[in-house]
């Protein structure tokens, strides 16, 4: 019986991902890593959770295996399964197993979207046992000290049904993320999109105002990621108004009046 493992080189980061710390998250993550504790990142979409994990992965010199969780993701998809290759039955490691074996960082993005059995699978990895049972294979993988499990979720739009259980939540060191304060966000937008400070400042002001609408019909405010997109379009020669309409107004709402009011805010700034 053959065993296939994905090449870890596929997950290795070549360059340092840009990340501007907004608080003590780097220190906290580093401390958790050194203490072999799993980490949970909470925060709205597009605020930099994934970039932070990438940055820490590069900083700690670990490979990063990211799994975008979805409602059809099963425990087998994570740990691995038997597949047929011609006449042979082959065990295919899942991304979690790959990360565990390689002593990398396994990042399960939006973990609450996955099916419930996946959270059961990660439990033994999050306590002092640090093991990953491969039930179908009758094997237990002991995680090396370098391995770290990181999960993320966005409490903003999780329903009661989709919230994480306390038995899961209380296994993690939680780092809370939010949109960076204005000066930091301007710096991020500048750095990531290449726009000058003035444009970055205006974009961030628009975002600040739009985020005020979060309890007035918007599920989420404008993410830093969208501001970067807007900056990239502007840097590429698109008129600021059109760029903001395409990256800020339209993605965050289908409500035409909401779109118009946001566009008026953009108009005020540009």
């Amino acid at each position, binding site marked *: 019986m053959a065993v296939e493992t994905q090449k870890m080189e596929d997950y290795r980061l070549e360059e340092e991902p840009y990340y501007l710390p907004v608080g003590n998250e780097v220190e906290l993550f580093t401390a958790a890593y050194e203490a072999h504790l799993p980490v949970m990142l909470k925060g709205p979409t597009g605020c930099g959770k994934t970039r932070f994990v990438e940055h820490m992965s590069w900083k700690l010199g670990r490979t990063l295996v990211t799994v975008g969780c979805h409602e059809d993701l099963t425990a087998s998809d994570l740990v691995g399964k038997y597949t047929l290759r011609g006449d042979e039955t082959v065990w295919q490691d899942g991304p979690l197993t790959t990360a565990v074996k390689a002593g990398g960082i396994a990042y399960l993005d939006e973990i609450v979207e996955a099916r419930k059995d996946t959270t059961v699978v990660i439990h033994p990895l999050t306590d002092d046992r640090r093991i990953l049972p491969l039930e179908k294979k009758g094997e237990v993988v002991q995680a090396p000290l370098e391995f770290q499990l990181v999960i993320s979720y966005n409490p903003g739009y999780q329903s009661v049904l989709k919230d994480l259980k306390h038995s899961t939540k209380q296994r993690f060191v939680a780092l809370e993320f939010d949109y960076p304060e204005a000066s930091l966000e301007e710096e991020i937008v500048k750095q990531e999109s290449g726009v000058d400070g003035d444009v970055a400042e205006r974009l961030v002001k628009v975002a600040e105002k739009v985020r*005020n609408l979060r309890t007035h*019909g918007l599920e989420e405010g404008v993410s830093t990621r969208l501001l970067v997109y807007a900056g990239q379009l502007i840097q590429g020669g698109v008129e600021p108004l059109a760029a903001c309409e395409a990256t800020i107004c339209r993605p965050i709402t289908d409500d035409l009046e*909401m779109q118009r009011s*946001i566009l008026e805010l953009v108009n005020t700034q540009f």
Partner: protein
Amino acid sequence: MSTQGGGGAGNVGMYVGRDMLAAVPEERRDDYLQLVQEISDLKYQLGVEVARQLPRLFQEQDDEAIERYLDQVRAIAEVGWKSGVEVAKQLPDLYHAPDPSIADAYVEIVTEATVGAPDDEETQAFAAELEDLERQLREIEPKQQRATELKSLLAARDRRDERRRKHAQELAAALPPILARLRPKHRDCYMREVRLVASADPEAALEAANTMLDLLNGERVSHDGAAEWVRRGLDVLEKNKEVGRGYFRMGSKYSLEVLEELREGLALRQVARVLKLYATALSGRDVAVRGIDEMDSVDRFGPDHIILPADMRFFEDDDRNFVAYKVAAAHGAARIEFGTYRFTLDEIPDTVAELTTKYGLGAA
């Protein structure tokens, strides 16, 4: 059945069977058909009988007998067609009687029997009187119908007038409180237009009185616009009272369309939510945008309300009017955000101290 006899035979085919026509010598068939047609024009049943009897007379090729037969049939038919049918049936046989005068005597007897004795004077007088009465009755019938129509019309008008008086009374009660709420500058326009509607239909005037109050007080329409709105409503009212009342109640699509057409400037209700979201985003507070016509229902000095005109008419185009609204909304949002009206007497000492610190003693 077939006419076969040429163009002048008309409907003679109805009476002439193929066998009858075949019994007539070929060269006389047109004559036969024409004669049958002529007699049947007098009476259908006579035509049928003559069509049966004539072929034998044509076979005898005795034109004189044919002429005599037809004359006698015509004569008897003149006094009574039923007798004529029977005579037409019997005569050809009588022409062959040993005594040729029998046929003539037979016709005379039947004629006299049919005509009877001349009427006496009394009978003739009865008949004349009856005829005269019947003529008068025929003449009076349309008049009776017209009288019935007029009764219905007058009754309907009575009911209408009664309703009119009832609605006029309701209008009399309703107008004073409405006038008390009307802004003085609209009074002349309001009275003029409501009067126009009232003279046409008091019930519609009741609707118009309320609607015009909202339109004018809410500045939703100018005085000229109000006059035009009423004028078009009166046109509708003239064609159909119920539809017209709906118009003045603002319950018809047309009424709203006319108002929209006459409206000058940008209506707040079209952009209120956009402005609310805009002001909420700017201020970071939950802001409510209200029209000036809604001031009665709002605490106008409350920190979370922005009062704006119901219509913005500074500019010709809506885009610039929207910008004007936006400026006003931004001003309102700033007032809310920075607490312009959040001032209480308790704050005076702190405010004095703050100003003194900031600007020196002269400021306080």
